[in-house]
């Protein structure tokens, strides 16, 4: 029976320890003070030593530049909150957080938020956690709906404060179109992310107004689930979610964001994730010259007009690189007349008509708007110069009868 007594003793001690941890976590949180300069010194007390090591390894040229950057994250849900935590731990300079929702117990199947934060706005709860993790990051919380006229004004003005990248982590088409509108107007580069409603696939996309397809250039792409769509049960729920898929997509998004900001590796224009088959399609999309978004068309025009300047800059860069190395032919003989051709345009397509040439596994989420040359049914153009107030009175009269 000695073994059993020992077990009882140990169990008691474990219980005591657990309760001590539980009580200490609430009473005195030892918050670290702010760090003035990022140090590469490898000591336990340096929160940035492992990140600064990226420089020594030759991955990143100047990691500390991350402190100069501001990133706006729209949608602090399953993807956005994790992305915010990643950037906070990386020591980003400033984070602007947008969401109109509050934390609920139904969110606990995803990462980041804690049950004791239920009822708080997502942005405030995020600021609470993130400021504890890294007090060096400047955090701004915007609890509002950006799709309303009022919310949009606040949104666009806050982006004018100088934001380097906007990350879209919202869960609906409407909000994505709003971010697209703001970024097209502000010439703001942004990255889109999404997880499918069945929680098994996702994607990230880089959007540079005028240069790449905007979100309105073509119906949004989604990664096909890879299983027969007819076998998917859609009755009863409008959205499922998994912490795994959301974590993967948040990781892909922030990785792309870090590559873009700190200038290392290749920044992906579009990367899909199909978790059922572990398939990652990539593609590039050029803007649609007939895009329905006027700001997008304006940006496309600007981009075309700046082509000579871009070409000159690219040429100068290549010449500078060439002059630094001694030029000699790579191969003296070329028996098979092998030559290198420019393939910079391969693999990209105009957003207007991609449906036939989409890579395998990608489909459009919504149909394109029909073009009607003839009228189908009555239109309201007849006598349209009617008075607005008169129309209001007519509707009011109908409504009150």
């Amino acid at each position: 029976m000695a073994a059993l007594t020992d077990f009882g003793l140990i169990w008691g001690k474990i219980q005591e320890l657990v309760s001590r941890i539980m009580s200490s976590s609430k009473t005195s949180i030892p918050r670290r003070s702010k760090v003035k300069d990022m140090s590469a010194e490898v000591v336990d007390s340096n929160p940035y030593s492992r990140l600064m090591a990226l420089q020594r390894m030759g991955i990143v040229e100047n990691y500390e530049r991350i402190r100069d950057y501001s990133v706006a994250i729209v949608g602090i849900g399953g993807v956005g909150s994790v992305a915010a935590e990643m950037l906070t731990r990386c020591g980003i300079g400033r984070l602007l957080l947008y969401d109109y929702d509050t934390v609920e117990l139904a969110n606990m199947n995803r990462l980041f938020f804690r049950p004791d934060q239920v009822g708080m706005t997502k942005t405030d709860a995020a600021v609470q956690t993130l400021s504890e993790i890294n007090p060096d990051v400047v955090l701004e919380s915007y609890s509002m709906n950006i799709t309303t006229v009022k919310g949009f004004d606040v949104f666009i003005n806050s982006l004018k404060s100088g934001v380097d990248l906007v990350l879209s982590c919202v869960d609906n088409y409407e909000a994505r179109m709003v971010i697209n509108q703001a970024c097209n107007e502000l010439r703001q580069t942004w990255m889109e992310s999404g997880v499918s409603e069945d929680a098994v696939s996702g994607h990230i996309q880089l959007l540079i107004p005028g240069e790449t397809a905007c979100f309105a250039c073509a119906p949004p792409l989604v990664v096909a689930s890879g299983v027969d769509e007819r076998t998917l049960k859609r009755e009863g729920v409008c959205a499922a979610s998994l912490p795994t898929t959301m974590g993967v997509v948040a990781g892909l998004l922030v990785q792309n964001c870090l590559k873009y900001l700190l200038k290392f590796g290749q920044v992906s224009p579009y990367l899909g994730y199909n978790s059922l088959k572990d398939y990652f399609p990539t593609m590039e999309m050029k803007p649609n010259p007939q895009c329905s978004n006027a700001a997008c068309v304006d940006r496309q025009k600007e981009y075309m007009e700046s082509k000579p300047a871009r070409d000159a800059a690219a040429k100068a860069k290549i010449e500078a690189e060439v002059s630094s190395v001694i030029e000699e032919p790579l191969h003296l003989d070329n028996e098979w007349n092998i030559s290198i051709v420019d393939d910079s345009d391969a693999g990209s397509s105009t957003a207007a008509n991609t449906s036939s040439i989409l890579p395998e596994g990608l489909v459009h989420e919504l149909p394109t708007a029909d073009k009607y040359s003839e009228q189908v049914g009555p239109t309201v153009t007849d006598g349209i110069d009617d008075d607005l107030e008169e129309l209001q009175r007519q509707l009011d009269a109908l409504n009150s009868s």
Partner: protein
Amino acid sequence: MEGWDAGTKSALTQIPLLSSRAGPRDGEAWKQRLKEEYKAMIAYTTINKTNDNDWFRISPTNPEGTRWEGSCWYVHNLRRYDFPLQFDIPVTYPATAPEIELPTLDGKTHKMYRGGKICLTVHFKPLWAKNCPRFGIAHALCLGLAPWLAAEVPILVDSGMVKHKDDEVTPSQSSS
């Protein structure tokens, strides 16, 4: 249009189509669009009344016409169930449809997003995208909200989630 009942189809063909592609931030063009919205709405309400199928009241609550409030109702087993109805015209309208909200049903059904926004993804969003900018608020109610109510209200009532106002226990009675 396959899959829609005859009544919906008939109403839909009679609602005037809109032509201005303008949202609330487009100044004069939005005023023009708003006039078209009114005309379509007046026509749809008239059709409903003529066909003895009156089922909603909605009108703007601000001069800009960007916030709409009212109510809608559905008759199930000869009893009428009323729900407050509201939505904002999004800044990206008409590229994106208004997100129709039934705030009193928030949290009572899975076919709904946070804040009482009804789920329109499968049955309505593709139609809206296909018919942009010719569909307006009247079309959203006819093709978005009406089928949602027809599908959800019977389930909500039969499962006891929604009670008829005559059956509801008033707070004074329930407090002991």
